[in-house]
């Protein structure tokens, strides 16, 4: 009797596990497939293909009024356009998210759009606009959201661009504390790097080294080669600043190796120039 009951329960459990989850409608499936293909194209470096696929996915999401889909595709498109050197096109997609009132796009997505706006302003050396957009984003966050630490880091980077080292450190520390969880490791590394950079700018190279080592460790965990390169270059500069030329050379050599592996000619030139100086 007991064996029968156990067998029946196991069968019921197996049937429950094997049962198919509910499928989204066909149009939505198409949008999902296009979004995933766009992501694959983006990760393989095909920005043109990624843009085309994201646009198709966005068109479907707009047609079925799927607010979060519209926001995600528009934000991804803004990033692709920014990387293609088309900030105006990026702004268009970001406005689509920020100016929405009909679809009720979430405040988190709007915060991310504001963060992207701040980043574009920063790339254009417009630190005032960057600050304004970062503050707008923090307003959308209203306490906590996934891009909060990124927004704080953007304020720190804007301060750093104005040679305001103290302000940059202040914002970076806030960003570090906001990026406490596991998902915020990349932003925590960014905050540490900004802190170190601000300290180097302020002439306090020795204090920058621990932050940079921590950032490097995080970036290696996340396997982000460009961040690793940036950490190594800053470490080289910090050691050179305190007269440890051998250590500096070693970091510059590692940075050169990373840049060469990435086929980043500009990065390699920069590392080689730093090596030649030492």
């Amino acid at each position, binding site marked *: 009797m007991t064996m029968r009951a156990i067998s029946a329960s196991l069968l019921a459990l197996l049937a429950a596990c094997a049962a198919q989850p509910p499928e989204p409608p066909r149009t939505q499936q198409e949008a999902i497939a296009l979004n*995933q293909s766009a992501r694959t194209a983006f990760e393989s470096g095909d920005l043109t293909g990624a843009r085309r696929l994201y646009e198709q996915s966005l068109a479907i999401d707009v047609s079925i009024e799927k607010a979060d889909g519209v926001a*995600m595709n528009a*934000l991804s498109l803004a990033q692709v356009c*920014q990387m293609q050197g088309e900030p105006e096109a990026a702004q268009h997609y970001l406005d689509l998210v920020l100016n929405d009132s009909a679809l009720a796009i979430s405040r988190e997505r709007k915060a991310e759009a504001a963060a992207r706006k701040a980043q574009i302003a920063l790339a254009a050396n417009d630190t005032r606009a960057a600050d304004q957009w970062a503050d707008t984003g923090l307003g959308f966050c209203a306490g906590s959201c996934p891009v909060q630490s990124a927004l704080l880091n953007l304020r720190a980077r804007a301060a750093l661009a104005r040679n305001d080292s103290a302000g940059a450190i202040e914002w970076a520390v806030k960003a570090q504390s906001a990026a406490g969880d596991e998902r915020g490791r990349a932003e925590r590394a960014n905050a540490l790097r900004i802190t170190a950079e601000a300290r180097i700018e302020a002439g306090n190279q020795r204090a920058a080294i621990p932050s940079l080592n921590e950032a490097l460790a995080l970036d290696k965990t996340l396997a982000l080669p460009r961040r690793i390169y940036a950490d190594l270059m800053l470490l080289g500069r910090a050691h050179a600043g305190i007269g440890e030329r051998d250590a500096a050379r070693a970091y510059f050599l590692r940075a050169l190796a990373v840049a060469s592996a990435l086929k980043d000619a500009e990065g390699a030139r920069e590392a080689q120039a730093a090596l030649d100086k030492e």
Partner: protein
Amino acid sequence: METFPKQDPRFTHIGSKAVIFLILAAALAVGTVTAGLVHQDYFVKTVRLYFFADSAQDLAKGMSVQLSGFKIGTVDNLWLEPNATVRVRLLINRQYIHFIRQDSQARLAKEGLIGTSFIEITPGTPEVRQVENDGVLKFARAKDISDAVPDLAARIGPILADIKSITQSINEPNGDFRQALKGIHQASTSLAEAADSVSQLARSGDTRIANIQEHVNVVLDRAGASVDKSNKLLDTLGGTLATVDRAVPEVLEKLNSTLDNANSASIEMRRLMSGLSADLPPAVSEGRSLMRETHEVVQGAKKTWPIRNYLPPAEEQALPFDSNDDARNKR
């Protein structure tokens, strides 16, 4: 015997005759009066209408009232009102009253420029209600010649002023018109001089044409020699063409054989293609169907437990945001 009879025979029945005469006279008088009244439309059923004018000028009792050129009534009476306006009563023949609407207008008009005045009534809008007895119409005084003359004078005045200024401009010795005339005169003089030059040019042209003719003769002589040479060249060309004529059949034969080979190759190709065309579509369609089925199987497998647990969730995702992204950091 009586000299005079007691009763004149002419006076017999005089009483009856007098009565008959009196009756006839009375009937004639009544008839005359009745005819007069009929002529005065006394027995015609009429409707009284009023209008108010600012002055009684040209308005008079008994004036004709017309509608579309037909007489439909008369002006019955006029009164001066306490506010100095003139109230005019019209008697309109009842049979025409249905033409007159409440928006109809009475107008003082004249037959021609200096003819007699009359009241003209416009028919009004058919949709508006018909005017009733003792109704009041709007009145407008039509412009007569005395009104039109000042208007005409005002219009002609500027034209006359323009004509005067044009005349003055023409008469002015240094004015455009005089200068233009002077210019025309000078131009005609220059034209005469130009005509002389042209005739001289024509004479000189004749001399030059004679010279050219001599040159042409020389050139024609040389051309004759060239034609002789060309004839010789054509003879040579004729010989060459004869050689080509002999060679062409051989070339054509070779070309024919080549075309035959190409034709047979084409036939072979067509045969091969027809064989393929029979086999290829089923192969393609089967391949397509196989691929579709494979796709469906894979899709189905992806949805089943436990495979689905190892696959990423089927949902849209945004690219991750990183504050360190910029144009250089593409990954």
